[in-house]
Structure formats: C-alpha cells, structure tokens
C-alpha cells in the first residue's frame, strides 16, 4: 500500500518540479525530461463472466479499461499472455505471488453479471500485489449496451484509487470533423467518447463551417462559431440532447472565439466592430452583453479562471500577440507572457493552477503551459502547426489539434487530434474518423 502511493506521488511531484525548473523558462525547447518516473505496472485479466455474453462483455470492458489506463501514461498494462493465475471470481483473494512473479504492482479483478432486469453489473476490486491488500472495490449497474461507459467508470475508479485524483475517462470530446480540399473544406461538429469511440455528427456541414466548439462545464451544451459565406460569422449555442441550435445575439459585426464561464451561465467572446475585435461577456439568461476590453488592438480568445475572478486573453496591443490577464470586470489588465514569438489561445486549467497556450516561434508551433502570474512556462509539444488546447476535466491532460504541412504536390495537410500530459512525455494520437480539429473536452459525465 505505502509503496504504491509513494510511486504515484513521485509521478506527480516530478511534474511539479519540472514546472519549477528555471532552465526551461522562456526557451523554445521541449520539456521532454526522460526522468525516472516509470509507469506503474498493472495487471488486468479479462473480467470474469459466467456465460458467453458476459464473458464477451468482460473481455471488451477489460480492453477499454486497459486502453484508458495505458493512454494516461501513468500505468503500464502488463501483457495478458504473461499472467499465471486466471481468477475464477471477483470475490476470491488473488494468489499474490503469481502476480508478483510477473512484476505487477496492482491487480484489477472484475466480473460481469447479468441481472434479472436485463441490465448488467460490473464489479471490480483493485489489489495491491505487494501488501496483499484490497485498495478499493466498486460495482456499477447499467444496461448491457452501455458497457463502454461502465468500463470508463471503472477506469476512473482505478485512477482515483491509485492517484487520489479524479479521473477523466468517462468524458466526451466535441471537435470539428473535416473533409474535402483545404480551399473548400467541409467542417462539421462531431462528438465522441474521450477514447475516440462512438463518433456522432451533430451538424451537416452544408451551410456553414463549424469552428472552435466549446463544452459547457455544467450542461450538455456547446458554443461554437458558424462561419458563413458572404456574411460575418456568428457565435451559436447547440443543445446536445435536443439538437437545437440558436444564434447567440444578432450582431452586425463578427462574433467569435466563444467560451463558457466556469458556472456555465455566461459566454465570453470576441466581437468585431469596424475591423477591431474586443472582448465581451454575454449573460445567457438575460442575453445582456457587457464589454470587457476597449482597445484599438485585437483582443481575442478569452478564458475565465475556475473561480470566476480572472480572465486570460490574447492581445496584439504590444505589437505581437501575447497573453494578458484581467479581472472579470475588465479592470487590471496586464501582460503575462514575455518570451520570443507569439503567444495565443490561452485556456485556463480547470484546476486553476495553469494556463495552456499556443506559442509560435521561429516558424514552429508549440503547446505549452504557464502559471497565471506568468511564471513557470513549459513547452510540451512542437510541430509545423498545432493549436487549440483543451483540458481534461482534472487538469492533467491537454488535447489539441496538429496539422501537417501541405506539400507542393498537394499531399499532406492532415489535421489530427493529439493529447499530451503535463510532463510532455506522454504524447498520443486521438483516434477520429478522418481529419479533425478544434477539440473540446467535456466535464466528467454525471
């Protein structure tokens, strides 16, 4: 028990100490410190089932759990072919020496049972292989066709049990699905599970392009920008449950770069008037619009701190794009980035401790994080073109999109979703059906 917690604390402490390293400040180097933080070895035999159906579900559920844990970068799932013991019941004590022999530190044992009402019950125990202790146990009841969500909930339980932090696996991602040539791109809104399963189109992409969707932190609602032909683009609201959409206000100028406030009651956005863009906040119940910046420079990409007190945004008032913060009423505006190149698309972490951003420097694009006071900048990834970071609801993982260069013969130019953890070590492609951009992570599902 002690040993496990120590290992995981090391993992997180390491991430923090990287953040403090002064050598990385303001420099365009990727912080890929191949430190001694090893992922924890976890064994997860297929969840037990009494008949063919529950055995099949058990296999599928275990696959989803292992994939979640593996992709987090904190766990190394040991190949099932190495397992010696085959658990017969979720209620028996494992033969710990068998699991120690294959170097597992944690063992996840589960069972799928069919209930009399047709639903299934997924029961799970998490064992410490070295102390022979149970670390936690949980059971979920759900309709059989909802087994994926049950699996993500189990993975979230394991994550929480072993790290002490809330997981992020039972979540969804909205994004822009892209098809067609770059000159005439069809961009429609899609939603999928966090691991890329169950992609569903939400708009048809016929009359406008969908750009920059964002999830409400409190409701099944999205805000995005619709880019039309021949008239200025406008911010929209989209209700995921009903499919209803509505334009948020009716303005002569373009409205864009929308983002919900943490309480879900307001939408921050930029509005353009006579060519100049400033930041406004709209109250969703009264539809009253409040101006927050009034500057002859471009002010875009507002994002509010989780306590609702501060707003970060991009402005070129200093000559190039940099990130600024201000109070929620627009007062006390100050610049927080001073490195070379351009800093854009700030997104406040749901934990409040960091702001993710896109930095352009020397012809390359980077995703990085910085503390809200401007200290501790760290760059996590780098490529030809990447932007649009979005946080996992626990503030530990950032998803973004990356576009490759288009070669002279017209090949290339693919746009894909990626995720990276705060250490920068765990960079993963996120599976999407075709090209994708502008991901937005949902809160944990209720």
């Amino acid at each position, binding site marked *: 028990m002690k040993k496990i917690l120590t290992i995981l604390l090391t993992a997180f402490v390491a991430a923090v100490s990287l953040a403090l390293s002064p050598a990385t400040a303001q420099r365009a180097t990727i912080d890929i410190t191949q430190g001694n933080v090893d992922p924890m070895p976890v064994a997860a035999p297929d969840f037990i089932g009494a008949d063919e159906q529950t055995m099949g579900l058990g296999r599928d559920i275990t696959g989803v759990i292992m994939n979640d844990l593996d992709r987090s970068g904190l766990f190394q799932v040991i190949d099932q072919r190495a397992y010696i013991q085959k658990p017969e019941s979720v209620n028996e004590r494992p033969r710990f020496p068998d699991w120690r022999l294959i170097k597992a530190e944690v063992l996840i044992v589960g069972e799928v049972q069919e209930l009399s009402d047709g639903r299934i019950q997924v029961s799970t125990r998490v064992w410490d292989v070295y102390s022979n202790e149970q670390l936690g146990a949980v059971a979920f009841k759900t309709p059989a066709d909802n087994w994926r969500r049950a699996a993500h909930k189990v993975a979230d339980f394991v994550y929480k049990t072993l790290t002490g932090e809330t997981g992020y696996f039972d979540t969804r991602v909205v994004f822009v699905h892209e098809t067609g040539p770059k*000159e005439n791109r069809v961009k429609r809104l899609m939603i999928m599970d966090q691991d890329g399963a169950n992609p569903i189109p939400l708009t048809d992409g016929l009359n406008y392009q969908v*750009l920059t969707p964002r999830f409400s932190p409190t409701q099944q609602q999205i805000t995005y920008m619709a880019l039309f032909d021949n008239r200025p683009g406008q911010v929209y609201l989209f209700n995921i449950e009903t499919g209803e959409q509505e334009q948020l206000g009716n303005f002569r100028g373009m409205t864009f770069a929308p983002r919900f406030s943490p309480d879900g009651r307001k939408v921050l956005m930029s509005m353009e008037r006579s*060519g100049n863009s400033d930041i406004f906040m709209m109250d969703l119940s009264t539809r009253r619009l409040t101006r927050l910046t009034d500057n002859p420079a471009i002010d875009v990409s507002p994002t509010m701190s989780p306590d609702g007190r501060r707003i970060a945004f991009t402005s070129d008032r200093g000559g190039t794009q940099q990130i600024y913060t201000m109070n929620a009423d627009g007062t006390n505006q100050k610049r927080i980035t001073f490195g070379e190149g351009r800093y*854009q698309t700030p997104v406040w972490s749901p934990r409040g401790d960091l702001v993710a951003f896109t930095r352009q420097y020397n012809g390359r694009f980077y995703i990085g994080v910085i503390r809200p006071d401007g200290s501790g900048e760290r760059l996590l990834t780098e490529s030809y073109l990447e932007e649009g970071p979005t946080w996992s609801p626990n503030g530990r993982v950032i998803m973004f999109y990356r576009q490759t260069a288009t070669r002279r013969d017209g090949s290339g130019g693919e746009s894909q979703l990626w995720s990276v953890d705060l250490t920068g070590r765990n960079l993963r492609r996120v599976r999407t059906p075709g090209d994708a951009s502008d991901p937005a992570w949902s809160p944990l599902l209720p």
Partner: protein
Amino acid sequence: MNKFLKVAGIFASLALISACASTGPDVDTTDTSDTMVDTGPSGPVPGTQADLEQSAGHRVFFGFDQYTLTTEAQSTLSKQAAWLKEYPETRILVAGNCDERGTREYNLALGARRAEAAKSYLVSLGVDAARITTVSYGKERPIDPRSTEAAWAMNRNSTTTITSTGA
C-alpha cells in the same frame, strides 16, 4: 436580364481562376496553363466582376501578420475606387483572408482588420461606405492550399467581390 447575369457569372468565375496567377505576389505559374479565357474581342462585360478584375484587380496582398496596405495594394484599391465610381449602383463584399501560420481565432480578427483596411481606403477615395460590406474568413478560405511562402503570401489578402450590380 437573367441571361445577362448568368453570362456575367460565368465570366466572373473564369476570371477568378486566372486572376490568382496574374495578380498574386511572386507565385509559381506552372499551373496556369488552363486559364486562357476567351472573353471575345470586346473583353469582359462592363460593370461585371470580370471587368473589375481586369481593369482594377480584385485582390490586394498583405505581409505576414500585417494589415497595413502596401503601395501596390493602394494602387489596386485606387483603381477599384475609380471603377466603383464608374458603376455607382454596384455593391461589393470585401473579404479578409489569412495564411495558415497563425491561430484560428487570431486570424479571424486579423482577416477583419484586412477587410476593414481595404474598405477604409476605398471610402477615403470617395466610395460610399454603404456600398461595402466586409467579412473575415480567417485562415479558412485559402486560395493556394500548399505550405509554401508563395502560397502563404497569396492567402494573405483582401478580396473584392461584386454582390449586386444594382440593375
């Protein structure tokens, strides 16, 4: 009348293809062999998009991250203004565009700046502001999809399109 507009529309779209190569800054011209447009001995129909493109040019180009008008851009816009005075019933859309070397949201704002810069210059030359609407497409409507300096230069523009001939 309908017929006239249809013909004009065809000319306009043909001319669009050729204009990319003829007015762009420093561009590979290898793929322009198919742009021979037979506009007849009398040239494009006066007052049409094709006419605007031939007599004035419908695109002006900007430097990286810039929205100030170069002397070349001012010269093109002066010709547009003169043309617009000749056809006072015409209404236009000025669209601001950006290259892919920027973030989506900033480029939407920058495209609005570019459209506004072109519009303001036209207005300063006496074109009625009420005849001009502006739109920004950010980096979402590249002319040249390739990731080359030449393509980026081409994609940083404001483009003038006739929305109504007033007739």
